[in-house]
């Protein structure tokens, strides 16, 4: 299947950037593509950059949470980076439970968080 959105690989970390207007079908294909790639590459961490998304409704929020859960099951960590202020306020008001998502402001902070998560994981092993 052809790639919908390019997935970058930086060492053991995958990076995917979601941008613009995403319809439901595209979101689901991205979910499928990403989880497959995490499994295939055994990446230890995934950064999902949503700084290009101006609207995150309950559907997208649920899918993101699901992706993070899937990636965790695959023994990896997912960090959502770049949630915009307006989107953050809206998601909180919308009431979508996103409590267990790892988030960071940008890719730099996201990488640092991934490192900490990996280290914590190592320490607790």
């Amino acid at each position, binding site marked *: 299947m052809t790639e919908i959105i390019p997935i970058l690989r930086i060492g053991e970390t995958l990076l995917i950037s979601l941008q613009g207007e995403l319809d439901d079908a595209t979101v689901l294909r991205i979910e499928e593509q990403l989880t497959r790639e995490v499994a295939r590459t055994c990446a230890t961490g995934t950064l999902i950059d949503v700084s290009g998304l101006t609207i995150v409704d309950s559907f997208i929020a649920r899918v993101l949470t699901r992706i993070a859960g899937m990636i965790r099951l695959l023994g990896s960590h997912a960090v959502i*980076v770049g*949630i*915009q*202020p*307006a*989107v*953050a*306020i809206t*998601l*909180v*008001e919308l009431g979508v439970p*996103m*409590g267990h*998502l790892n*988030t*960071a*402001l*940008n890719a730099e*902070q*996201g990488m*640092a*968080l991934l*490192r*900490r998560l990996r*280290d914590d994981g190592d320490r607790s092993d």
Partner: protein
Amino acid sequence: MTAAPVGEPDPRVRLRELETLLEAFAGHALFRLDLDGRVAGWTPMAERLLGYRADEALGRPVAFLYTEEDRAARSPASDLAAARESGRTEVEGWRVRKDGSRFMANMVFAPIRGERGEVTGLAVAVRDVTGRLHAEAMFRGLLETAPDGVVIVGPDGRIRIVNRQAEALFGYEREELIGKPIEVLIPERFRDRHDAYRRDYARAPRIRPMGIGLELYGRRRDGSEFPVEISLGPLETDQGTLVTAVIRDVTEHREQEQRLQRQRDEIMELSTPVIQVWDKVLALPIIGTLDSLRAARLTEGLLQKIADDQAEIIILDISGVPTIDTQVAQHLLKTVQAATLMGAESILSGVRPETAQAMVHLGIDFGRLRSRSTLRDALRLALRILADRAGAAQAATGMLRGEQGR
């Protein structure tokens, strides 16, 4: 003069009766002209209106009632000719009384026909309409001196009258507008609807602002638009109900509104400052009560600052909040949740034991939110968290270097 056959009414008496009736009901002064245009019959009302007695008027050409200018322009002759040719003729013009005073007359010429249908003379009905002229002049005076643009529209939707201000507002000469549909002054995208609005107004015309809730725009001659406020009023005339539109350019007013709004925003912002207390650490001292609007602004300001400064930790100081009720707690909670989504960790400071108790009682779950009683303690905690993170990062790079060194 032949005497009337016995038993039939004298035609002259009959005519006089009719004349009296007409004068009484139509308010016109009547007199008669012969075929040459000379006065052939006179009435008391004609005497009253024009000042001439019957013996002074009889036999004189009708021109004696006209002004010198009109006589020089041969108006009497042309009025007579028109009456003879086309039948009933109505003219308006200045006429002169015996004492030399002028008045605006409405004169109707009607041919008198004999038994065989031939024209035997002209009946003339005269009415003083100077009063109406004054009213019109006053009206025009008012229109021209009005500070706002005035456009008067007929029942057919076409422009009848335009004042000077309207010319200036829209950039037209009035001759260019008279007779045109009012829609030429409206931006194209609103024209369709306007027709329906006009009909609605015609059904129930009254003095009221136009388009409550609508944003109105006028369209100038050069195509440019400007915001307007319009007041409508019905004008009853003998030509039907006209609609008067008083138009005001409110461009400045709108700009002022916007300026005021921006000022208000700035004041709001100044009263809720977000302080960068350290690299990557922001503090928001919340002072006073939190209503929804203020809370929303606080949160938005804070989140924007997190993005701008790339902050990792925010300290929410509530020592200045008198009472923590459900509403305040909810606002705080939402702020913390939103900051968390942006990857920032939150610390609550200024939490006194009573506050802590109140929050527990409210049953609001603040999750892993840490709190300290003073801002200083909160800052110390923040710095420790950052140091731990930096240490972890160093350890990671150190490990890598160590491995590479082997």
